[in-house]
């Protein structure tokens, strides 16, 4: 079975210059944990997730802590978030994006989703243009 047979056919995506404020609105309303970033030719150039935004809003020393309970309150996070809401998405996106081709075998998508523990993976065509995404549930639906 090929990826294009099971993928979610959705092109929801953003441009690199969309602001973090807009991005949060889209992630929330489209109920997506992450969103592909594309160029003017609709080619995949990055991905940005809720996790990326939370991490960007956390204090710089967060990675050195053993637990989030060491952060005294969320004020610091709120202040840092306020400071980045007008940043362009490209400033915080991941530029190295795991993806599969529409004609790849489903096993390829399943392997990446399971081994990398990701909720979904973008699907592109031969020109690198976004054509959909494979969600974890898409791997299961064909068999019920």
């Amino acid at each position, binding site marked *: 079975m090929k990826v294009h047979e099971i993928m*979610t*056919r*959705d*092109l*929801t995506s953003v441009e690199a210059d969309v602001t973090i404020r*807009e991005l949060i609105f889209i992630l929330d309303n*489209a109920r997506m944990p992450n969103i592909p970033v594309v160029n003017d*030719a*609709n080619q995949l150039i990055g991905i940005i997730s809720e996790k990326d935004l939370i991490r960007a809003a956390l204090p710089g020393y967060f990675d050195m802590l053993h637990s989030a309970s060491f952060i005294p309150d969320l004020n610091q996070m709120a202040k840092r978030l306020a400071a980045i809401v007008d940043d362009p998405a490209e400033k915080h996106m991941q530029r190295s994006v795991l993806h599969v081709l529409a004609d790849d075998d489903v096993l390829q998508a399943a392997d990446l989703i399971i081994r990398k523990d990701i909720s979904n993976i973008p699907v592109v065509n031969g020109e690198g243009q976004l054509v959909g995404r494979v969600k974890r549930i898409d791997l299961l639906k064909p068999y019920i």
Partner: protein
Amino acid sequence: MIITVTLSPAIDKVYWVDHLKIGEITQDSFLTRATRSLTSAGGKGINVSILLARLHVESVAMGFVAGHTGHVVVRDLRDEGITTNFVWTHGETRTNVTILERGREHIPIKVNESSNRVTPVEIDRFFRRFRRIVPNAKWVVLGGVLPPGAPPDVYRQITSIANQHGARVVITAGGRALAESLLACPYLVKPDLRENVSFEGTPVATVNEIIAAGRKIISCGVEMIIMSHEVTGDIVITKDAVWEIQARIQTTQLKNLVGADDALLGGILYKLDRGAPVEDALRFGMATGILSAESEEKICRNIDKIESEMDLISLERLEG
């Protein structure tokens, strides 16, 4: 690739009732129970996408969606195998209700909510997305009313961009949105005359009035115009010819007219996309529209019956 644009999509909710009680005074008598109901994603461009999907043709549905009902629209389209590319906005996608009373299904009662307002930022987001994918498009279908906040010339802007990329534009709309779009020379136009049986102040009731109005539109550079004449008949005007296309069925055979016009347009588009002669496309389109109107579901699923339905369609060349 075919792109359909529905700037004001909807949830279409259809109720069938045995008898619609209006003006009664006790609860027992004023409560009308639906014998059954159907819910589906709706809006003119979306209906065309659904028809194309059932004919196994891929399309990308674009427009604005919002809130819970927006998710219902998107889910419905994905279940049909349609690619979605909607801009998410504030608010809630509208719901349009149709009530069909037994024996009077050909005279539906319709209540359409107002469209959700869109902002200039959201319009800009739409155009950026449209520009990204239109280079791959062969056809662009624009359908329905404009949402509050959309510029009145938005269909003209979309048509101009599509034309620049060599895509043919099909528009089914009414009022100023349609009039503005004609300035950009779409390929095919089907005026929506449901609420106003006139075009640019000219009445369009008789065949001669329809042909006169159609010629006016053709003179703007449009290749083909389809004008509703009767429930089961249309007048089609091109630069070279005028046809009257008619389905030989009783209106009482029609079970659900919602979306039938869009199925007709989708059927014509399906054939034109395959290079079929205009006459074949028109007969196929009318058969698709009639088959949809004869089925309880908005857009017919029994597409294998379209060819046999074509036996009921007559096509008369009036001029040319």
